[in-house]
């Protein structure tokens, strides 16, 4: 299969010895062009154009049903594995290359653009360290014991979970608390060395303290990754993000109302509807 369309990260191929070199690949920019997302004939998200800056946190906000989750799932081709005859039109560029090009392999795309979900979903049959290594192992990557141990430690460190789990790496991931499970999922995503990390409401199932930890983690991670986060918590968007996109699905499909630096969106929004939403007048 020809995958030249999507650039490989230097350490992506499991057969090369890239895994023990902890040099981050650095986040890449993304660009969304005329994106339309459908479920069958139903248009869920219409004509989104947006640039995602590298090594920044971009937040998608908006009321329930505005299409922000659908949009973020279009960014690593997860939309097409959703039930309901999903379809995407338009382009999404990762570092200049279209992930929807005819010969772009969705599996490769997802290795470069990782995703963390709303509900923590560690693999229940795997231990904590197996969970971290899952992405590499399930891609048929072979690792020596020392390599594996290094990746586990390094990924868990970066996910700010190492100190809490270092003595029970062999235990089931399901034995952790919700917040720890979510950080385990982040560690699992980091372990495959993506360029972009997408987070679909990563804190909505967590308590405030666990939420704070994830937010601090996001702040640290953006040094190495580009991050896009969906949230319906406006405080979270204003605290944790550099750019904010406000979406709405009033009178038609979900669309982008306003996009800009977070500070500007929250202090001087140009659109009336953004202001109404942010000040809590609806939504």
């Amino acid at each position, binding site marked *: 299969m020809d995958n030249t369309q999507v650039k490989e990260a230097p350490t992506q191929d499991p057969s090369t010895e890239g895994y023990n070199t902890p040099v981050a690949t650095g986040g890449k920019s993304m660009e969304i062009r005329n994106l339309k997302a459908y479920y069958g004939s139903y248009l869920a998200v219409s004509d989104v154009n947006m640039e995602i800056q590298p090594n920044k946190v971009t937040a998608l906000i908006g009321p329930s049903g505005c299409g922000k989750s659908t949009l973020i799932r279009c960014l690593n081709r997860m939309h097409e*594995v959703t039930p309901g005859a999903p379809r995407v039109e338009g382009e999404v560029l990762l570092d200049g290359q279209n992930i929807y090009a005819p010969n772009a392999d969705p599996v490769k795309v997802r*290795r470069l653009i990782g995703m963390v979900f709303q*509900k923590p979903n560690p*693999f229940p*049959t795997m231990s904590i360290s197996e969970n971290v290594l*899952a992405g590499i192992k*399930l*891609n048929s990557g072979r690792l020596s014991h020392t390599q594996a141990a290094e990746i586990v430690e390094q990924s868990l460190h970066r996910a700010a979970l190492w100190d809490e789990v270092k003595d029970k790496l062999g235990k089931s991931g399901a034995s952790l608390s919700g917040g720890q499970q979510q950080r385990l999922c982040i560690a699992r*995503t980091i372990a495959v060395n993506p360029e972009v990390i997408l987070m679909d409401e990563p804190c909505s199932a967590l308590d405030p303290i666990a939420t704070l930890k994830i937010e601090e983690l996001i702040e640290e991670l953006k040094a190495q990754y580009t991050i896009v986060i969906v949230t319906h918590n406006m405080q979270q968007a204003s605290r944790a993000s550099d750019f904010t996109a406000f979406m709405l699905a009033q009178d038609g499909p979900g669309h982008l109302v306003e996009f800009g630096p977070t500070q500007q969106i929250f202090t001087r929004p140009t659109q009336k509807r953004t202001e109404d939403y942010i000040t809590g007048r609806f939504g």
Partner: protein
Amino acid sequence: MEQVGSRALDAGVSPRERARFAVRRTVNLAMAGLVGLAALIGVAVLLFILGYVLVQGWQALSPAFFSQSAQPLDFDAKGQPIAGSGGGVLMSILGSLLILGLAALISIPLGLLAGMYLSEFGRGKFAFLVRYVADVMTGIPSIVTGVFVWSLVVITTGHFSAWAGALALSIIMVPIITRTVEEILRLVPNALREASYALGVPQWRTIVSVVLPSAASGVITGIVLAVARAGGETAPLLLTVLGNEAINWNPNQPTDALPLRIYDYATQPYAVRIEQAWGASFILIMVILVFSLLTRIATKGKKVG
């Protein structure tokens, strides 16, 4: 209800309320008792069958019964069969294992793959058809399966064989395994599949390494149920493997099986043979019990989801 906060729990409760509480408690107790009783009856029936079979057949359960094949009965001077004569059922035990083994070899991969197809890919008309056919097949009387394989395999090859029996049992097992595997795999939360996809894992690898292990215990239970069901089938074997007085390991030859032997001995006029039929019944039940117990121990602690 206006002063809920300040009211002590038992103070000011009217006799009427107290009476209703008593009724509720009684009903609750009665219902719990009823449910427990139903469970007890279910288990008691199994224990009763086991006990009855054991009582009827224990005299036949000698070491020779397990280590010998069938022998002719010895008769005493009065023309009565001598107790303990007539050999054993070793050829039936081994024959059952051979036929079931072959049937498992055919039906487990087929049922597993078909179940995976229905759960992970089965959306369109074809999947509907497969599901429908599997459901109908589960309801086909096993004698019909026997006749079908008899005319298709036994007649065309010209002889009865363990293969024919295995085929007949497979026709019974495949739809059971297919539908159980499908149902069990559907219980695996979609979030796990998505987690795997999001790590850049291909779909086939996700199914094999994430979905299937998460459902291992349920899948194995389904297979055990199918094997147990097939292990007790008599009618299809009657028309396909015929039976054999001696041990046979050649799948192309007529073979013995426990249900066949039970059927054969139970219809004979001699008390010794009937006792042996009871003994063989006990062995058949134990084989299936031990088999399912072993798989249960082997898959202990692994849960769906």
